[in-house]
Structures are given as structure tokens and as C-alpha cells.
């Protein structure tokens, strides 16, 4: 008995590493918990707000949980009325529904007897709330405002762009790592050069090129300009340089075509690097904003990000829908991160890019 309490005491008081506590240790934990609050708090608040009713969203000061006021149908009124707990003049408590608020008094009616009306000062009443989750915030935009289509557009762009990026970048990386040929250095410098030219400084001319291909307001206009990525070529090349050359020589002896060597030998061996690039590409494409904003101006080709921005501009008062759709937009990336977070962080740490 005594020994087991000692063990528990040891576990509770023991530090993971036996050192003395320094003031920086206390500060560290304080900072970390503050960090958790700052980084996750906004997301949790978004999640909680996204299932509130429109009335609950507009309430100030806001309630933390999605509590909404109970609404009742009263004979003779078209709209459902909000229910309040009211202290009457004689001190008794009752439940009344509000018809209209006039200044600091409120016209109220007994929900059971539509004939009985009251005038109550607003500080004598209290809202009756119940916990209710408004899934309609998620379903309505998907049905009424075409968000299902935008979701499909985003998935199309992400999947097709990632496939194209993986294939052409791995082909270039294969050429630059396995072969020796004239102009290899030039090609490498060329690829490095494109690393220095971000899209923000060539917006107009790329738009011009896309316009010449007739790809304005087409998802292909979003997919193609970013398909060849210098970072992707480098990432894959660095990895392919480490592959054993004997394998390739052996395959050549067996009369395998160069293309067969590429896809049967080199690609399967480079899966780790390809997976990192795939995750990056999915992230880039799903989150892409500036370029689709320029290319896509018709609502039927909007991606989720563009639609969300446009939707927010049109319906500033409909925060419940905006927040629910924000949640839908961030969820796929959050799920990928939850499964592959170690992979992503080591990928970024080893390449220094995002």
C-alpha cells in the first residue's frame, strides 16, 4: 500500500528529466498554454458559432455555447415569437412572448391566451434559452447557394493539378538526376531562376497567356499556370540522386525502355518524396486564392475559397452561413493535418518551403 502511494507520489512530482525548476520552465508552460489558447481558440469559437441560429449569432454579448432563445407560435401572429421569463408588477413569475420592443418597454403576450397583453420594462424580463445545434447552417448553403458545386470545383482543381504537378515534375526531376546530358546545367539554372519569380509580379502577363488560350472563367486556367513548380522539381531531384544507379543499369541491360525505367523503378522508389510533394500540392491548390480570384469571375466556376469570399461580400448579415462554410473549407485540410502532421512538419523542416 505504502509503496504504491510512493509510486503515485513519484509520478506526480517527478519531472520528466531530473533538473531543478528554473523560472524559464514556468514561463515556458505559461507561454505554451497561452499558445494553445491563441491557436485553437479561434477555431473552436468558429466551430461553436457556426451552429448557432442567426438570432444567436447577432446577439451581443455572445454566448459561448450555441444556446438559442425558445420561439413559440401564438395565434394571430405570422412569425414565431421569442419567449421570456417575466417578473410581473405583483412579483409573480410567468412566461410571455414578445410582440414588439418599443424603447425600454416591450409589448408582450401570453402564449397560451393571445388576448392577454402586457407592457413590460425590458429589465424585468429574461431570455429563455435552450441548447440547440443548427445543422441548417451547413445544409442550407449546400442546397440553396450551390456550395456543393463549389466544393466539387475545388476538389477537381486540387486533384487534377496535383496529378499533373506530380507527373511533369517527377519527369523533369528524373531527367535532371539520372542522366548526364548537354545543357543539364542550363536547365538547372532555368529551374532555379523560376524559383525567384513569384506569381505576384507577373499577374497581368500570365492573365494574357491564359486569355490567349481561352481559359478565362475555366478551371483549367486555374490549374495550368502553377502546374510546374521549381520546389517540386528540386525536392524530387534531391531524393532521386540518392537512388542506386545499379538498378537502372540492370534494367537497361534487360532492354527496358527509358520510360519504363522511370515509372517502374524510379517512381516507386521515390514514393516518400512524391508523397511530400503531393501533400504540398494539395495544400497549395486547396488554399489558392489570388490567382483563382483573377481568372474566375463567373459564379458557376468558383472554387470554394472564391465562393466563400464572394458569399461573405454579398451576405454580410448572414454570418451563420459564412461561418459554417468557413468550417467546411478548413475541414479537409485539418483532417489531412491530423493524420499526417509529423510527415508535413518534417517535410517542411527538411526543404524549408511551404
Amino acid at each position, binding site marked *: 500500500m505504502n509503496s504504491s502511494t510512493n509510486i503515485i507520489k513519484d509520478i506526480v512530482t517527478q519531472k*520528466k528529466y531530473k533538473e531543478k525548476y528554473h523560472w*524559464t520552465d514556468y514561463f515556458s508552460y505559461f*507561454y*505554451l498554454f497561452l*499558445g*494553445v489558447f*491563441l*491557436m*485553437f481558440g479561434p*477555431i473552436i*469559437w*468558429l466551430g461553436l*458559432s457556426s451552429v448557432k441560429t442567426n438570432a444567436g449569432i*447577432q446577439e451581443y*454579448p455572445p454566448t459561448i455555447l450555441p444556446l438559442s432563445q425558445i420561439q413559440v407560435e401564438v395565434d394571430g401572429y405570422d412569425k414565431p415569437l421569442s419567449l421570456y421569463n417575466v417578473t410581473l408588477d405583483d412579483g409573480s413569475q410567468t412566461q410571455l412572448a414578445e410582440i414588439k420592443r418599443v424603447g425600454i418597454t416591450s409589448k408582450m403576450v401570453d402564449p397560451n391566451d393571445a388576448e392577454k397583453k402586457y407592457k413590460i420594462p425590458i429589465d424585468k424580463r429574461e431570455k429563455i434559452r435552450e441548447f440547440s445545434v443548427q445543422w441548417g447552417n451547413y445544409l442550407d448553403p449546400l442546397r440553396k447557394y450551390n456550395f456543393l458545386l463549389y466544393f466539387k470545383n475545388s476538389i477537381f482543381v486540387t486533384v487534377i493539378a496535383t496529378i499533373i504537378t506530380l*507527373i*511533369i515534375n517527377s*519527369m*523533369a526531376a*528524373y531527367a535532371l538526376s*539520372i*542522366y548526364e*546530358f548537354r545543357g543539364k546545367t542550363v*536547365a538547372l539554372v*532555368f*529551374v532555379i531562376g523560376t524559383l*525567384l*519569380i513569384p506569381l*505576384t*509580379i*507577373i499577374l*497581368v*502577363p*500570365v*492573365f*494574357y*497567356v491564359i486569355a490567349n488560350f481561352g481559359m478565362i472563367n475555366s478551371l483549367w486556367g486555374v490549374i*495550368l499556370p502553377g*502546374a*510546374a513548380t521549381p520546389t517540386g522539381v528540386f525536392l524530387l531531384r534531391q531524393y532521386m540522386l540518392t537512388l542506386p544507379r545499379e538498378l537502372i543499369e540492370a534494367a*537497361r541491360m534487360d532492354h527496358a525502355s*527509358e*520510360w519504363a525505367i*522511370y515509372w517502374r523503378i524510379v517512381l516507386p522508389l521515390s514514393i516518400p518524396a512524391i508523397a511530400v510533394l503531393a501533400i504540398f500540392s494539395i*495544400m497549395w491548390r486547396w*488554399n489558392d*486564392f*489570388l490567382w483563382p*480570384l483573377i481568372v474566375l469571375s463567373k459564379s458557376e466556376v468558383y472554387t470554394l*475559397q472564391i465562393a466563400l*469570399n464572394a458569399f*461573405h461580400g454579398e451576405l454580410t448579415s448572414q*454570418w451563420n452561413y459564412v*461561418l459554417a462554410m*468557413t468550417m467546411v473549407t478548413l475541414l479537409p485540410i*485539418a483532417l489531412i*493535418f491530423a493524420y499526417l502532421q509529423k510527415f508535413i512538419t518534417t517535410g517542411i*523542416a527538411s*526543404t*524549408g518551403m511551404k
Partner: protein
Amino acid sequence: MKNIRSKIKNFFITIFKIPFGFLMHTIDIIMWPIQKIIGVRNMPYIFLLPNLIFFGLFVIIPLGVNVAFSITGGDELLFADREFSGSKHYNDLFNCESYLNPNTCKEDFFWRGVYNTIFFVIFQVGLMIFFSLLTAVILNKKIIGRGFFRSVFFFPVLLSPVVVGLIWQWILLKNGILNAVIEANGGDKFSFLTDPGWAMTSSIFVSIWAHMGFYTLIVLAGLQAIPPNLYEAAEMDGTSTERTFFRITLPLLMPNLLVVFILASIKGVQTFDEIYVLTGGGPGTSTSLIVQYIFTTGFASSGSVQNFGLAAAASMVLGIVLLCLTLIQLFLGRNKETKHQEI
């Protein structure tokens, strides 16, 4: 459980394998005769071709076309309809009585954008270095739940700019939760997004919130590369924690902090999306940055006409600034060994 998971995994692998194999076999039918004709030695050119075509079409050619746009006028996109206008756009951009006062400039929005961007970058980069260093040092300590805390700080990096902008707009609204908390503690409401000064502060904060995790990771990689025997030796000598930090950690971390400085500056100068969603560049022009100027001038069709030439000229100016920053990076990175030469 494990069995089911591996079954699902195998299922997905097969799903990918079949079309992949089919596609590759089909391409092989084309590639085999090509290889017969041009020979193995010339095959790498074929492999490079698709990527180079994309780079050429969407990076190299546009660089030249950008110059052509910046020296031609009119609001048509096709060159047949554009007139040569020489350095008109550049003259317009730099037509100022006093460069210090944007109101005296012909293109006052451009200069407001420039000054806003300078202000934004100075504070954003400075605070970014400070906080990513602090966070990385703390995350590098022997703390419980280190992996969890690391991913917590990294998480916002993955969020899209629209999501970041909307989340923070929702929090910082006049009737948002932050003001509710401030009022509950006896303070007055702040106009975080509608007061010019506060809007800039909020923008800088949100931008740091969204990108800090990335730079923390770079600093963390540097911290882990510092040989532990240095710290052991310092401990033997009874060196204080503060002294160890300033005499060992900081000097050895300098290359990484430089990388953070340059990368954050290059990205900071190009900031657009999350601020655009958060404040829309407002109130007025108080948070509108250079890229927003280029976007509004060239593409936002509401109000004035689309002035591609002026937008292209402004992109050229931005491009020169970025080139200078990159040259500084190359110059600094030349003699110092850094792991992160790539952007």
C-alpha cells in the same frame, strides 16, 4: 482494427495502381518509338520538355510580356489594340511632388500601398523573428507533450487565407467576442477593423498568427543542429541559462534567423490575401498593400477601367524590390552554411 486499416490502405493502393499503370503503359506506346528514333542519349530532353514548356509559358514568356504591357497603353488586353506609350506608366507611378507625402502623387494609391507595405513588413518581420525564436526555444526544451505543442503552433500555417481572414474578422468585429470580453472586464469597445491604426495592428497580428508556425519550424531545425556537447560544457562551467542563450544559442542560430528574416521579408512584401479578406484594404486605404494596388488596378473591374499597363508597371517595381531582397539573400547565404537556400 489494424487488419481493417491495412485492407482499406490496400484498397486505395489498388484503386490508384490500375489507372496509373494504364496511363503509363499508354504513354510507353508513344515513348518507345521516340526512343528508337532519337536514341537513349537524347531521352532526357523528352522528360524535361513538359516542365520546361510550362515554365516557359507561365513564367519566362510572361516576364517579357510584362515589360511589353508596362510600356503600352489603353485598356485592351490584346497587343493589337494597345498603343505604345513609352515610359508613361512609370512616369505616372513616380510623378510625385514629394515622395514622403502620398497625397501629392498622381498615383496616390500606389504610394499609400508602398508606405503601408513598408510599415507592415517592418513590424511583421520584426515581431515574426522575435516570436518564432521565442516559440522555437521553448519548444526545443525538454517539456512534456512536445509533439503536441509543436503541431499546435504549426496548425494555422495550413489554413487558407480566406479562412484566416474570416475567422479573425468574426472575432474582431465591433460586436465580436473580443470586444465582449473587453467590455465584460470593464473596458471600452475597440474598433479593431474600422479604425485606421487598429486595422493595421490587427492585420499585422493576424498575419503573424497565420505564418509564425512555418518560421518557428525553420528556427527549430537550426536549434536542433546545435551540438549538445556545447551545452554540456557550459553546464560544467556553471554558466547561467541566460548567458548560455546569448553566448551559444543565439550566435549559432544566426544563419537560420537570417533565412527567416529574408523569407519573411520576401513573403511580407507580397502579402495580399488574408488582409484583403480581413479588412478589404480599409478603412479607406489604411491597410491596402502593393499587391492589392496591382490587383485593383489591373483586375478589379468595379468602378474604373482595367489598367493593365499601370498594373504591369507596378509589378515591375515590386519585382525589382524582390530581386534586391533575393540578391541580399544570395549574398548573405554565400559564405554562411544554411540548409534552406530554397524558398
